[in-house]
C-alpha cells in the first residue's frame, strides 16, 4: 500500500458532510496555518514541499505563489481551476465529489497565504452536481465559522464563490478561465502580462488546480520537508491518477510517484492488468494532450531503464521516446484499438474545442481532423501522413495558448511511433475498415497471457 494523503479518508462513510469531516480531523490544518503560522511561513512550507502544479504543466506551486505582485490597496485573488475537461482526466471530480471540505480547507489556507478575500472555484459546467456539492459544503463551512468575516478571530476575511463554466475546454487555460470568470468570451489572453501581475479584473491572481490546492492541507499538517520526502527527486508528494481504458480496474488512484508504470498497470492494487486477457498496445499517460507511447517505450525508457510514474521518468527521452505526466489521465489501449481512429477522436476533440482566436490552431485543427477522417474512412494517400506531420509542426509553438500544442502533440506522437499503422491503413483500405493493424513490433513484450 502506498502512502495516501489526499484520499486517506475518502472511504469514510459520510465524509462529504462537515460533521464527519471535522470529526476525522478536518480543518486542523486551517487552525494551524491561521493561528500558528505567518504568511511567509506558509509560502516557505509550500516551497520546501516541492509541490508541483497538478493541472498538467507541473510548475512548482510555491514559486508560482511567490510571483504574485503585491501592490498597495489592490485586492488579490485566488482562483481554483476546476474546469477539468481533458479527456481521460477525472481526478478533480472525484476529489470534489467525495472530499469537498478538503478542497475548501486547502482554499482557505491558500487564500490566507496569498491575501485573497474573494476566492473563486471555476468549475466545469458539466459537473453540475459537483458544483451543488461544493456550494453545500461552502455553506456548512461558513455556518461553522471557517469562511466569512474574521475567520478564527485572526481578522482574515475570506469567501469562496463557485462559478460554473458553460462547457468549454479552453476555459481550463488560466487566462481564458479568467476572461470567462469576468463574464467575457473565454479567449485566452496574450501573455505577458501574466495573471500573477494582472489577472482577474486586472488584479494579481493565482490560478491553481484542485489537486494542488488540496495538497496544501497535508503539507501544512506534516510540514514541507516531510512532504518532500515522499516521492522521488523533483516529483514530491502523492499524485492522483485517473486510470481508464482497457484495464480491469479503472478509477482514481493515489500514488506516491515511486512505483513503476508496469506495476501501476499490472498490480492488483491499481489497474489490475489489461482487461479480457488482452495485451497492452499503447498508453496515453497524462491526459489526451500528451504524446501517446507504444507499450515497449512505456514500460522501459529508450535506454532500457524501468519507467516510473513520476514527472521526470515519464518525460525521459523528450518527445522522441518519452511523454509527460500531464494531468494524470492514464488512458490504456489494448491490442484491439486502432491508433488512427484514436488519433482522429482526439483531433476532433481539439477542432471542436479550439477557441478560434489565433489562426494556426483555428484552421490547423480542423484540417488535421479532415485528413485523419480521410485516412480512417479508407481514402487516404501516402502524402497525407507527411502533410499531417507538416501541419502539426506549423501549429506547435506558434499559438497564443497551449491548446495548439495540445492538439499537435497527439498527432505528432501517433505518427512518430505508429507510422506503419497509418501506412497500413492507406495500403489496405478495405481491410482497414473491418480489421485492426494489431500489435506488430511495439507490443508489450513482458506480459504474454497464457
Amino acid at each position, binding site marked *: 500500500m502506498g502512502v495516501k494523503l489526499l484520499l486517506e479518508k475518502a472511504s469514510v462513510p459520510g465524509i462529504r458532510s462537515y460533521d464527519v469531516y471535522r470529526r476525522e480531523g478536518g480543518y486542523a490544518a486551517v487552525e494551524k496555518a491561521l493561528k500558528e503560522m505567518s504568511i511567509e511561513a506558509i509560502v516557505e512550507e509550500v516551497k520546501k514541499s516541492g509541490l508541483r502544479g497538478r493541472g498538467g504543466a507541473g510548475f512548482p506551486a510555491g514559486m508560482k505563489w511567490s510571483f504574485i505582485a503585491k501592490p498597495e490597496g489592490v485586492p488579490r485573488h485566488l482562483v481554483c481551476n476546476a474546469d477539468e475537461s481533458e479527456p481521460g482526466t477525472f481526478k478533480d471530480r472525484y476529489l470534489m465529489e467525495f472530499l469537498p471540505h478538503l478542497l475548501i480547507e486547502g482554499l482557505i489556507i491558500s487564500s490566507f497565504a496569498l491575501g485573497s478575500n474573494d476566492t473563486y472555484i471555476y468549475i466545469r459546467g458539466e459537473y453540475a452536481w459537483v458544483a451543488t456539492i461544493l456550494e453545500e459544503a461552502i455553506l456548512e463551512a461558513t455556518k461553522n465559522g471557517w469562511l466569512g468575516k474574521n475567520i478564527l478571530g485572526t481578522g482574515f476575511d475570506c469567501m469562496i464563490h463557485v462559478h460554473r463554466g458553460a462547457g*468549454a475546454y*479552453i476555459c481550463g487555460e488560466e487566462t481564458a478561465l479568467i476572461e470567462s470568470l469576468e463574464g467575457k*468570451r473565454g479567449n485566452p489572453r*496574450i501573455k505577458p502580462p501574466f495573471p500573477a501581475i494582472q489577472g482577474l479584473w486586472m488584479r494579481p491572481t493565482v490560478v491553481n488546480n484542485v489537486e494542488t490546492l488540496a495538497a496544501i492541507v497535508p503539507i501544512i499538517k506534516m510540514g514541507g520537508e516531510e512532504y518532500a520526502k515522499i516521492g522521488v527527486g523533483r516529483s514530491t508528494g502523492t499524485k492522483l491518477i485517473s486510470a481508464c481504458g482497457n484495464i480491469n480496474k479503472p478509477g482514481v488512484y493515489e500514488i506516491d510517484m515511486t512505483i513503476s508504470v508496469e506495476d501501476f498497470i499490472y498490480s492488483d492494487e491499481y489497474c489490475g492488468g489489461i482487461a479480457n486477457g488482452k495485451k497492452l498496445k499503447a498508453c496515453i499517460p497524462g491526459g489526451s494532450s500528451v504524446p501517446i507511447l507504444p507499450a515497449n517505450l512505456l514500460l522501459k525508457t529508450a535506454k532500457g531503464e524501468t519507467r516510473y510514474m513520476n514527472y521526470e521518468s515519464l518525460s525521459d527521452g523528450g518527445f522522441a521516446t518519452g511523454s509527460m505526466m500531464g494531468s494524470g489521465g492514464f488512458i490504456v489501449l489494448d491490442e484491439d484499438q486502432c491508433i488512427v481512429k484514436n488519433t482522429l477522436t482526439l483531433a476532433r476533440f481539439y*477542432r*471542436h*474545442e*479550439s*477557441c*478560434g*482566436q*489565433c*489562426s*494556426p490552431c*483555428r*484552421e*490547423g*485543427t*480542423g*484540417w488535421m481532423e*479532415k485528413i485523419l477522417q480521410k485516412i480512417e474512412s479508407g481514402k487516404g494517400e501516402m502524402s497525407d501522413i507527411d*502533410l499531417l506531420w507538416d501541419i502539426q*509542426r*506549423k*501549429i506547435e*509553438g*506558434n*499559438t*497564443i495558448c497551449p491548446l495548439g500544442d495540445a492538439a499537435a502533440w497527439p498527432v505528432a506522437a501517433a505518427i512518430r511511433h505508429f507510422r506503419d499503422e497509418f501506412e497500413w491503413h492507406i495500403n489496405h483500405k478495405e481491410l482497414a475498415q473491418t480489421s485492426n493493424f494489431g500489435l506488430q513490433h511495439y507490443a508489450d513484450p513482458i506480459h504474454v497471457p497464457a
Partner: protein
Amino acid sequence: MSEQILFKVTVDNITIEVPAGTTILQAARQIGGTVAPPAMCYYSKLKGSGGKCRTCLVEVSKGSEKDPRPMPKLVASCRTTVMDGMEVKNITSEKVIDARAGVVEFLLLNHPLDCPICDQAGECHLQDLSFEHGASNTRYEFQRRTFKKHDLGKHIQLHMTRCILCYRCVFTADELTNKRVHGILDRGDHAEIATHIEKSLDNEFIGNVIDVCPVGALTDKTFRFKNRVWFLKPMDAYRDCPTCSGRVTLWNRGDEVFRVTARKDEWGEIEDTPQGKPGWICNTCRFDKKQSSDWVIEGPRAISRQSVISQGHYAGNVGTHIPNETFAAINEGRAPHLLMDIHNESEVNQINIHLSENEGPSNGTTFNQNINNA
C-alpha cells in the same frame, strides 16, 4: 519632465533606439522596409488588438543586455515589448519564414480566393501577404467553410466567408461606438463575426469597420462592384464636418467620386489628424458626400509605388528616384523583396538609356545605336 528611457533594439542587423514600452513591431516599422513584419490583426489605433493572426511572429535571438538568453518560441512582435539590447530576427531567420508560410497557408485555408470579384482586391493585406510569403498552390482538398452574406445596416455588407477573424472590427465597434452589438459567435473554425442577432449596425462611426478590415469581409455597399480600386485616383480632400475630422481620401474616376475612405498610412492604418488623434471619419462623410463639390481637394494621395493602386498614374510622384547602391549593400546582405530586377533582365530597360530622346518609335536598331552611342 524626466528624460525618456531609450532601449537599443536590433532587428535584422539594423539597430535603432526606441522608448521603453515600444513593441518589436513598432520598432521594426520605424526602421521600415522589409524589416517590418507583416500584421493582419494588429492595428496600432485599436487598444487590445493584435496577437491573433500570428503573421508577425519573429525570433528573439537575444532577450536583452541583462538576460541574453534567446526566447524559446517565436513571439508575436505586435504584443512583445522591446528590452534593452534585444536582438530580433525577422526575415533573416529560417524559422520565421517557415512559420509565416505556415500561417499564410492556414489563413488561406478557408478563404474563398474570390479576388477577381472582391472589392478589396488591390488593397487587400491578405493578397499582399500571400504574394510575398505564400505558396502558389494549396494542399487543402476539402470543402471550404461558407457563410451567407449579411447586411449590417444599409451601408455595410458582411461576407464572413472571406473573414480571417482578426477581431479588428470588433475592437473598432467596441472602442468607437458606445452601444456594442457586434462580436464573435461560436468558436473554432466555425466562429463568425456577427451582430446579435442580425441587427443592423447603426452608429455614426460604424463605417470605419470597413477601413480596418484587412480583407474583403466588410465592404462599402455604396461602392460594391462599382469599380476596381486600381482604376481610381486617390485624392486627399477635406470638408468641414461637424462630427469628424473631415480629412478623407476620395477615390475618383474623372470627376466622379466612387468612394470615400479615411486616409491610410503605409501600413494600411488610419492616419492621425494634425491634432494627433486617429482620423476616423463619420458615416455622413463616407457614404453620403459623393459629389466633388462636397469636398476641397488637397492633391493626389501618395501611394507606395509597389502598390497595384499606383499602376497607371502618378508617375514621378513617389519613389521614382533610382538608388545608386545595390540592394545588397543597402540591406546588409538581406534578399530584396523583388521578383526580379527589371534593370538586369533586358537591355531595353538600362537606366542610362532614355528612350524619350529617340526620334520616333524605337525599335531594336535604334536601340542598339543608342547603346553604341552611350
